[in-house]
């Protein structure tokens, strides 16, 4: 499709959006630019039509089944978007005095309490702007805790080998050294490896539960004891909480600090890349270190507060406020019963889908385990027999009008699909996905070229990633118009 720059012509404009010019004679000439920036010059209709058409090139929850593992692509209720779009919230200035912010603060306080109850953590800070920033806050809190006790040698963060990339990257950003802990053939962390890894340098362990393999880490209490005994703390990566929401509380498993991905578990839309929100929760030990600001309820009303030993703010204002409001709206509609059913039905859908795919001849990576809200299929056998890779499989699925599962993650399992149907999808959608998988499997056998050259029915054929990285083309250039 043509870019917006191809549609542009000198002096064309969306006149209703251009305010009257004003003199800026009083500004120093040296501070001003000499030429206008070459932004696109298009009519309002051109812009509307261009971006409306572009939207049609995307797959999305609102248009496709989207079983992207680890991403919890569930229905994003339209009502939560409307709630957050109420003018009183949308037009609120972040630095508005507390006296004219009681409605907003009441919402945040309510969400803090809901998340406290859902996780078992005594305190919650809502400010982190995504999961990775929540992780950063958590690791920074762990470091501050050790530092405050004069326990300065603890600079190692342990992560299971299957950890999501943000876990090690976060540890590094916090100035820690990352040590990976092996995961056994049953998908659980190897206890012996963990025992060998902990020591006086251990700051803490970061893990999800259920793990990135979609399995419940059964010996989590033992793991917690080992880390705690070694003087380390436990960080819960809550990106997978959907599986056990309302069923198990991370605090009960022994975790000291955690983050939640509201853009997963709490159904706020992912927006084609974000925004999200990654609130952090902490037990007694780490609560004093939470990032600020936090909302406190007093006799005179709600107000901002900073925990006593806070690691400080991580963003200019109060995090992704609009996402927090959406999450609150969602939680209010769920109620406590609904919250519990999230985990139950996410788990039911995943186990049903795994069983169906197993029946169709796919290899489930951990066939003897219960799936949680997601599970892994390995296509290693298909790769071997037909030369069709997981990526080929994924691309061909797109032709069937479903989004592909997550591919090649976790790294441990070769040629893998991490599949997460979520609780808001119907049995019929899941069955249709099974049919698509079965069809592609048949094609892989009978006509592997068809699969390897997929997709065929999308806005683009298979795109060349290698070329993209080798010959960087990161912005439109005027000369391209002539091409």
């Amino acid at each position, binding site marked *: 499709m043509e870019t*917006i720059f191809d549609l542009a012509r000198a002096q064309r*404009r969306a006149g209703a959006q251009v305010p*009257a*010019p004003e*003199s*800026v004679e009083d500004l120093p000439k040296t501070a001003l630019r*000499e030429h206008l*920036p070459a932004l696109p*010059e*298009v009519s*309002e209709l051109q812009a509307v039509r261009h*971006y409306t058409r*572009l939207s049609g*090139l995307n*797959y*999305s929850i*609102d248009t496709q089944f989207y079983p992207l593992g680890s991403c919890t692509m569930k229905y994003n*209720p339209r009502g939560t978007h409307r709630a*957050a779009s109420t003018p009183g*919230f949308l*037009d609120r200035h972040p*630095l508005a005095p507390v*006296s004219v912010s009681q409605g907003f603060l*009441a919402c945040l306080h309510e969400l803090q309490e809901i998340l406290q*109850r859902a996780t078992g953590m005594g305190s919650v800070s809502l400010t982190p702007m*995504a999961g*990775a920033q929540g992780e950063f806050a958590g690791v920074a809190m762990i*470091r501050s805790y050790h530092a405050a006790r004069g326990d300065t040698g603890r600079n190692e963060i342990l992560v299971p080998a299957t950890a999501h*990339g*943000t876990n090690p*990257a976060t540890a590094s950003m916090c100035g820690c050294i990352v040590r990976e802990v092996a995961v056994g053939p049953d998908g659980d962390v190897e206890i012996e490896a963990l025992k060998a890894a902990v020591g006086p340098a251990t700051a803490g362990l970061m893990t999800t539960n259920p793990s990135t393999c979609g399995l419940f880490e059964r010996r989590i*209490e033992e793991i917690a004891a080992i880390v705690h005994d070694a003087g380390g703390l436990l960080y819960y990566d809550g990106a997978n909480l959907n599986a056990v929401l309302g*069923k*198990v509380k991370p605090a009960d498993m022994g975790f000291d600090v955690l983050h939640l991905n509201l853009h997963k578990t709490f159904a706020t839309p992912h*927006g*084609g*890349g*974000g*925004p999200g929100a990654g609130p952090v929760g902490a037990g007694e030990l780490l609560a004093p270190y939470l990032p600020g600001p936090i909302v406190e309820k007093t006799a005179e009303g709600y107000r901002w507060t900073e925990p006593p030993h806070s690691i400080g*703010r991580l963003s*200019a*204002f109060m995090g992704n406020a609009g996402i927090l409001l959406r999450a609150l*709206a969602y*939680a*209010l*509609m769920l*109620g*406590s019963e*609904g919250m519990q059913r999230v985990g*139950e039905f996410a*788990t039911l859908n995943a186990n*049903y889908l795994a069983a169906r795919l197993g029946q169709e001849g796919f290899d489930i990576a951990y066939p003897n385990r219960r799936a949680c809200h997601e599970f892994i299929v390995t296509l290693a056998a298909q790769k071997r027999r037909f030369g069709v890779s997981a990526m080929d499989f994924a691309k061909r699925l797109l032709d069937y009008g479903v*989004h592909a599962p997550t591919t090649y993650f976790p790294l441990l399992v070769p040629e893998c699909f991490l599949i997460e149907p979520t609780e808001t999808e119907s049995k019929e959608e899941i069955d249709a996905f099974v049919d698509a998988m079965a069809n592609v499997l048949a094609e892989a056998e009978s006509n592997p070229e068809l699969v390897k050259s997929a*997709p065929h029915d999308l806005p*683009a054929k*298979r*795109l060349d990633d290698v070329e993209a990285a080798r010959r960087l*083309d*990161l*912005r439109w250039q005027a000369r391209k118009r002539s091409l």
Partner: protein
Amino acid sequence: MPFLPHTNADVASMLAVVGAADIDELFDEIPSNLLNTGRGNNAPAAGDAAGMSEMEMLRHMAERARADETGPCFLGAGAYDHHIPSAVWDIASRGEFMTAYTPYQAEASQGTLQLVYEFQTMMSELTGMDVCNASVYDGGSGLAETILMAVRAGERRSKGRPAGGRRRVALAGAVHPLYVAAARNIVGHQGIDIVQLPYGENGLADPGRVTGLSEPPAAVVVQQPNFFGLLENVDAITDQAHECGALTVACVNPMTLGLLKAPANWGDGGADIVCGDGQPLGIPMASGGPSFGFICTRQSLVRQLPGRIVGRTRDLDGNPGFTLTLQAREQHIRRAKATSNICTNQGLLVTAATIYLSLLGPEGLRNVASACHARTRDVVAALELPRRFDAPYFHECVLRLGQPAQPIVETMASRGMLGGLALGPYFSDLSDCLLVCATEKRTTSDIRQFANALQDAVRRAA
């Protein structure tokens, strides 16, 4: 439960396929002492166990939102009340944009990917730089990412040479104090030291101070316009920074670049990295978030740039198309050695900003910028209060009230007006000062109303 499609018949047939008697059985690997089998003990604080209907929820939220409505806004300080063309969010909130994930499957995400490529182009045009990333969280944390990037870049350049101030970064004194706080809290964990150069009597950084530092820093950060709304001597600062071997980092409000010199053209060499917050580009203030941070840089530093980047490539038929590129810098590939831990970013806001910039165009953005300046000029004239700094201001201005500003702000708020920011909590020497701001949305009558209310509050309090 409101969002489940399961009928009883569905559940029964699904359980039969799984071979489980009931849903509880699916949780049998979880140690029973951890399992919450009762109902309702995760109850949200409001509403009953069964949850609110959408109607009830909206009423609950609307009542609260209504409590926070105020009159015209004269508060800026990093969040600005601009007009947003209706088309921006009508399109950005289409399900295809709003409910898609990060565009990992490029062929099924050409809409978002092409849009981001267009965004990268627009931001490059505005800043004059070669490349822009597809967003970081916000201006504050984005400054931290930028500082980390500058330090990394500096370390690569100075390989072998003595470390010196390579893990130190100098910030002009009037960089947004909340950005500075966020940046300190983030980069501090990597042992990076931030020194702030005091602002002078005129409210500006003194370019001479840069070369006066004991050890040359990795980078010098300057904000334009600065936190006080003033125009810094960016040319001189850029040159001085380069002279002592430091990178120049520009922190900018992208709206002002409709009028102000592109950072790439500052001084002789131009800024090396440009960061800022995209909120003025079609994003509602929404209490400060979601907005988005951005970082632009030169081609030579692109591999140090954190965040997602979209590239144009070709498909199997040779047709152009778009894909995420340079992923080898990112956490999901590079893990502990990634340029940043960022994963989920602020994509939807980038979508909105791209549509906004397309609708405004070069002339529109320039006129918005000039209208903001003109209205602020009108405010300053109407208030008849002394300016604290005499350097030229853009669309924010520090005024002296001759008495503590905080109570005045409170009085104004009690009349439903956002009268500006009391600077005391941020700069103890400015506790009698008010930072005011006006955008293109402020009318003559807004300004008159504001001036009357403020003068009245000042008079009564005096």
